[in-house]
């Protein structure tokens, strides 16, 4: 079979890590090739090299047998390579058409909106999609946005399509539509590279599978000749533990009661449409759902970062809706934020600064005006040991820490009782293991379970259903701004959960 892509001996180093260590990879005409690995295994880096976003330190790239040098996406596009990134690279304030034709020479100077729109419509229909070319991108659902991304590539006649974890924002039904379209593209002779860390998807869609771990290729086979447990082993490097030990504790009192909570999102659309939920002491409640169904807004309202328009949140009987974050922090609500680097950590400040970002204003770390740096450094020393944060020194910049250590730093700050010398009443953890390796994930899980047994009530938001089923005592499914179902792990099968996440089935519980 004809080889579309061949990468040989690719090496890419970033400060402190070798992201790609002598990697070989190939893609054939008409095949869907899954590139499997955990977060941080080097899959995305490798594909960014193929797409010209990064330049390799060494190694060769062959496209259809010709050796090429790809210095920029412009070069990649010329060679017929297209990529759909994990975060869509679309401009919300522009129309579908404008997004698709950006950078195309054939369009000419003056844009013929009508003719191009017609062409886009037909192209979309040939893959079973219905897209209005003059709609604004911000009006589209996640699935439609992905279709626009793909149309962008197809419109350019790309022969090599790279999809970086394309299903993470899709409902199971949307996934099905995507897979059908991808198969059709492969049948037309295109090559598809499908980056994922989900095993079931490998079997659902791919012809061949390459597994990467810690920057190296560790496995390559026809998909039909392997099985799930073999792939899982290569992916994590050891047998996967699918269970976690939990001591049984009877949840006693109500820590948080949310009643009929309503709030708008940044675009002014009602994102919470009457949420009801209770979290008990000693209990871990998980919220699962497709991203963008109000999870983000919910945790923001609880932590005081977003205003609610209606409803109440009682923490130990005190209504905290629309209180300042400071007041809520003082009541003992800890918040492990999504995207630590955006909220939770300031990379340019020291580790001690980051540890005391919230507690600096309370005794004994401050007398109201001055800050007691000596006490802060002594306590920081203690925390770094207790939470096993690997760091050069307390006054090192937080940016020098790895992802796992950053999450430990956040856990240390949020959980260790710096404020009021007690463990938190409520811990809100938004996507606490996103982007972490297995070891760090285990640490986070263990720590959260430990704190729940010690008396905290915990609310975890996750996009990983299996994580939620493993860690939580109760799981709530969120769809379209509402909690559509609450159940205990084991009560429902995964298909049914999937349908509820997609909003197809409303449970009777």
């Amino acid at each position, binding site marked *: 079979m004809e080889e579309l892509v061949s990468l040989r001996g690719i090496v890419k180093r970033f400060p402190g890590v070798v992201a790609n260590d002598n990697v070989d990879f190939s893609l054939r005409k008409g095949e869907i090739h899954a590139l499997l690995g955990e977060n941080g295994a080097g899959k995305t880096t490798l594909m960014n090299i193929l797409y010209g976003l990064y330049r390799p330190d060494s190694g060769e790239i062959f496209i259809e047998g010709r050796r090429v040098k790809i210095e920029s996406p412009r*070069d990649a596009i010329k060679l017929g390579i297209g990529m759909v990134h994990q975060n869509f690279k679309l401009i919300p304030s522009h129309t579908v058409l404008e997004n698709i034709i950006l950078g195309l020479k054939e369009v000419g100077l003056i844009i013929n909106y009508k003719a191009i729109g017609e062409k886009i419509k037909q192209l979309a229909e040939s893959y079973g999609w219905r897209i209005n070319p003059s709609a604004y991108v911000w009006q589209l659902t996640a699935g439609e946005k992905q279709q626009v991304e793909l149309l962008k590539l197809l419109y350019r006649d790309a022969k090599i399509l790279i999809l970086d974890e394309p299903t993470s924002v899709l409902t199971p039904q949307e996934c099905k539509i995507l897979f059908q379209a991808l198969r059709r593209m492969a049948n037309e002779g295109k090559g598809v590279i499908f980056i994922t860390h989900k095993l079931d998807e490998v079997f659902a869609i791919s012809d061949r599978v390459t597994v990467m771990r810690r920057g190296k290729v560790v496995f390559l086979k026809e998909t039909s000749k392997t099985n799930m447990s073999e792939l899982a082993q290569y992916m994590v490097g050891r047998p996967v533990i699918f269970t976690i030990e939990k001591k049984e504790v009877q949840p006693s009192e109500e820590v948080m009661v949310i009643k009929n909570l309503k709030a708008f999102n940044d675009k002014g659309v009602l994102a919470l449409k009457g949420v009801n939920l209770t979290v008990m002491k000693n209990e871990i409640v998980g919220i699962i759902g497709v991203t963008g169904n109000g999870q983000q807004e919910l945790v923001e309202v609880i932590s005081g*970062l977003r205003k609610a328009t209606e409803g109440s949140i009682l923490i130990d009987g005190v209504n905290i809706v629309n209180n300042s974050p400071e007041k*809520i922090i003082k009541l003992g609500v800890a918040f492990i*934020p999504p995207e630590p680097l*955006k909220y939770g950590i300031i990379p340019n400040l020291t580790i001690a*600064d980051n540890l005391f970002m919230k507690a600096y*204003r309370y005794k004994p770390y401050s007398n109201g*005006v*001055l800050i007691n740096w000596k006490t802060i450094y002594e306590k920081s020393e203690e925390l770094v040991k207790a939470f096993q944060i690997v760091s050069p020194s307390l006054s090192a910049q937080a940016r020098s820490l790895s992802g796992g250590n950053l999450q430990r730093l956040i856990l240390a700050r949020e959980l260790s009782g710096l404020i009021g010398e007690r463990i938190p009443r409520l811990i809100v953890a938004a996507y606490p293991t996103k982007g972490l390796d297995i070891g760090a994930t285990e640490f986070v899980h263990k720590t959260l379970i430990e704190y729940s047994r010690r008396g905290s009530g915990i609310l975890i938001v996750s996009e990983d259903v299996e994580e939620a089923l493993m860690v939580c005592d109760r799981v709530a499914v969120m769809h379209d701004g509402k909690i559509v179902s609450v159940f205990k792990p084991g009560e429902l099968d995964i298909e049914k959960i999937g349908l509820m996440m997609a909003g197809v089935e409303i449970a009777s519980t």
Partner: protein
Amino acid sequence: MAKLLAIPYTVKIQKRTYITRKVSISITFLSLILAFLVVGLIFIFMGINPVDVYYHITMVFSSPTLLFESFKRAIPIGLAALGLSIAFRMNFWNIGAEGQMYMGMFASTGIVLLHLYYGLIPDYLVMFLMMLAAFITGGLWCSLPAFLKIKMKVNEILTTLMMNYVAMYFVDFLIYGPWRDPKGYGFPLSAPFPDYAKLVMLLGEFAYTGLLLLSLTAALVYVILKYTKLGFELKIVGESIDTARYAGINLSKVITLGGFLSGGVAGLGGLTIVSGIIGRLRPRASPGYGYTAIIVVLLSSLNPWLIIPVSIFFGGLFVAGDILQAALKIPGAAVEICQASIFLFIIVGEFIKRYRIMIVQKGGIE
């Protein structure tokens, strides 16, 4: 034009991991020399002998009397820069130090006139009240844009800039109108300040009293930024507003207060102009000290102690400008060119220290 600018070579920029002190200092030094070379070329183009210009600039820093004069100019510049260092710490782009200084001049002159015309204030209280009024007025002038920024997300760069002009015209109005000295033969000048309203009393000479004031303020700013709750909060706000909100910091309070302190210190700088350098209020009393302060604070990388020597250097350039104008009939604007090019070359130098620049041929399909 587009084709022409698409150079077939591309500049590759890489972060440097390490640079020796020697190299770092020589880059700064080289930037300075280059700046003066370029300025020299401009002078030649204008038909001015650059050697004359540089001779007079070096004179300023070698003659004790002129150096003394530079100290005087350094005081308002340094105070404004100290104020800015607070605002810049919280990533608040206050480019309104000039206007805040004018408000400081307005307030301190107001106190003096209240005293002179109405005898409302006893002699010994005048100086204290002048300082208080200058600080508060300058501070309020800056807390308004700070408040607008945090409450309504109004861009502070533009508001502070526009407010400079408002303040300047306001002082113009006063001095051409109600505050014109009736005994001043119709010149646009306020009544001269009595001695106890001038910054000479403590050490007999404005330069000494002023330097003392400057150093004390620098120490205070240092302590605020490093050891107080507010300083820590300013630092976090400056790094990330989202994180500051998440950490429970009261953003409105911190930003408005930070803006107030920033403008207040600049307002004090305004006071030193009328009560130290000139001894009365006149229109356009600041030849752009507030803008120079922006350069000073950035070249000092927000370090309060470094601000003092850097302001003395820039104060010296202002003195040189006056001398050039008087002795060589060269416009004082020469100084502005020197300032701007020194600044531009030094920030380019800083860039070169942080990054390695390589010119490589553009790749493609081999």
